């Protein structure tokens, strides 16, 4: 059984011009020890999906549908029940380690406060766990680091501390929201390697959210691509990246610089802009930018189309079906 099964998740946010759906009818799952990548442009609902797992939607946000975690429904949890899940069962790390660590609290306080709250351990025991955690995420001089404030560390080191914080209560699922976006490229690789190793060592399930397909290719087992709050395609990483079948995914991958298909002459981009929250197009939201769109795409919300047991798209047109084995146009 999967660790996390999400069905028909819909997230509604309050905006200046009324309620708007940021996530629409989203269904996906994460297995034990699996790394799922969630990719899409800004505003595609990735972060709202993650926050709804934790009951941390922004002010006046609402989620409906079903989120089953470790065999029980958690979407209907009370505030108190959610607090017992957060940090302890599901932990999250955020995009910018410069702002997600508290500037006025020592690393020790931030590493141990939730440990002491959830596990009711003594201060000394918590400190020992914190030392081990810092060693796990490869912070040099853990003892000195405990006494320090976040401002004394570089961005990469801070993200390692944030990961240590997330691991403190040994959660089953780690949600990483753009964990490397704010970091230098050389530092990114180290963080990705660390996440990979944690999965191997601890059988940790990880959900990585990013707009960077390059990050996903080296890290994830499976990928889900989102557009305007909905899934457009999902599948095993290698399958999806080498043989994308949804026009949007195809466009994303073709637009990657350095992709073998691409040279300077035909550097591809997807025409148009991603839709704004509250202004998602009808039918298939991508039809306004899709070269293969038919009249019906504007009317009907696409149904799931299973291409194999582990590769599906939400596109009735399926324009690349006859090319599926060649991998290129």
């Amino acid at each position, binding site marked *: 059984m999967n660790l996390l099964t999400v069905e028909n998740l819909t997230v509604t946010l309050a905006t200046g011009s009324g309620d708007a759906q940021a996530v629409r009818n989203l269904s996906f799952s994460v297995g034990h020890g699996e790394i799922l990548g969630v990719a899409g442009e800004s505003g595609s609902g990735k972060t709202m999906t993650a926050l709804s797992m934790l009951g941390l939607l922004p002010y006046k946000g609402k989620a409906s549908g079903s989120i089953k975690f470790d065999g029980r429904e958690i979407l209907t949890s009370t505030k108190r029940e959610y607090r017992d899940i957060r*940090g302890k069962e599901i932990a999250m790390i955020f995009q910018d380690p410069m702002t997600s660590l508290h500037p006025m609290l020592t690393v020790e306080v931030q590493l141990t406060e939730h440990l002491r*709250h959830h596990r009711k351990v003594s201060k000394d025991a918590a400190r020992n766990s914190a030392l081990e955690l810092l060693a796990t995420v490869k912070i040099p001089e853990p003892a000195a680091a405990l006494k*320090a404030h976040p401002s*004394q560390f570089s961005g990469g080191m801070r993200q390692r501390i944030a990961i240590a914080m997330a691991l403190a209560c040994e959660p089953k699922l780690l949600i990483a929201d753009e964990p490397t976006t704010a970091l230098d490229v050389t530092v990114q690789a180290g963080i990705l390697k660390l996440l990979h190793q944690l999965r191997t060592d601890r059988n940790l399930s990880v959900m990585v959210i990013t707009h960077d397909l390059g990050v996903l290719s080296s890290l994830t087992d499976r990928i889900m691509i989102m557009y305007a709050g909905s899934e457009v395609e999902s599948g095993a990483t290698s399958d999806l990246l080498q043989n994308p079948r949804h026009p949007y995914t195809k466009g994303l991958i073709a637009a990657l610089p350095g992709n073998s298909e691409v040279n300077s002459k035909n550097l591809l981009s997807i025409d148009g802009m991603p839709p704004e929250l509250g202004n998602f197009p009808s039918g298939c939201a991508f039809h306004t930018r899709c070269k293969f769109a038919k009249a019906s795409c504007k009317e009907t919300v696409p149904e799931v189309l299973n291409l194999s047991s582990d590769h599906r798209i939400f596109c009735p047109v399926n324009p690349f079906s006859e090319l599926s084995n060649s991998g290129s146009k």
Partner: protein
Amino acid sequence: MKPVLGESKARKRPLSGTGFTPFIIRRLLTSILLVFGVTFISFSITQLVPGDPVAANLGQSAYSDPEIVAAFEKEFGLDQPVPVQYYKYVTNLLQGDLGVSLSSKRPVAEDLKEYFPATLEIALVAVFLALIVGLLLGIISAVTRDRLPDQLIRVFSLTGVSMPAFWTALTAFYIFFFVLGWAPGTGRLEPGGEPPPTVTGLFTIDALINGDFSTFKQAFSYLLLPAIVLAIYAVGVLTRFTRASMLEILGNDYVRAARAKGLPEFTVIRRHVLRPALLSIITVAGVAFSSLLAGSVLVENVFSWPGLGQYAYRAAVGLDLPGIMGVSMVVATVYITMNLIVDILYRIIDPQMKDSA
């Protein structure tokens, strides 16, 4: 990856330049310079004000007699050139001599010793009330954002900052003294009441030191209403400011990160939100306390409270230069002291803060 950790060792206290003691010493020295700056500016301003202190302090017939005028000017040094007057004032000041008041004919230092503690007493009670009520309401308001408690508190705090002090004072006095009879009346003690032996000049404290509990109760009942009236404006300011800075901090990533750890909301608010919010709240509280002194002029008049406000009013009307100078010195010293206290509290709340003075 910078080995930034090494720097934490070099930064270790206490005798390096950013340590606590050197910081205090530096700030004290700056403060003394500031006080002298204030004497210069207020002295210059009192000289620039049109009006003749001699005319203001002598009667009509005395003023028309050149001999009396000359004697008066000689006695108070007004016949000297202005720079000489200032030089004398400062040299006397260094010996603790603030000059003699033109209106009360007593040394200004003695006047201040009598009047300032009266104001300090209501101001301290007022700022204490304002801090407790203002912080509490501001926190409740921020946490219940846009819900009923928040809306009620916002109306209340807006009313608080919008009502002029003299109007609140008159209304409160009318309702609680005249209509309800709860408040005892004007002054610091009942008519003919014997003040406790002076130690601090604060009647409540002196009564306690003397073990005189009934005088304490009496003095406290007399100061409560003016203190509350004085506090209302500061409560409004502090509530609004606390709410605003709490909401600002609540929007930070690190608060979301703290919530993502599953901490109880109370811990999130107290440890992750209130602490950084306090930094800016303290600044406002310091300014609020200092401005209570200014507000006291009107409130003291309504309650016939024999404090600095009343003294300042009389000195200003009488063009009593030494009196005006004395009051400005006291107010400046309070402002400077409050700033120093605020800076020290900053460092206690956030030990990482470097010396910016």
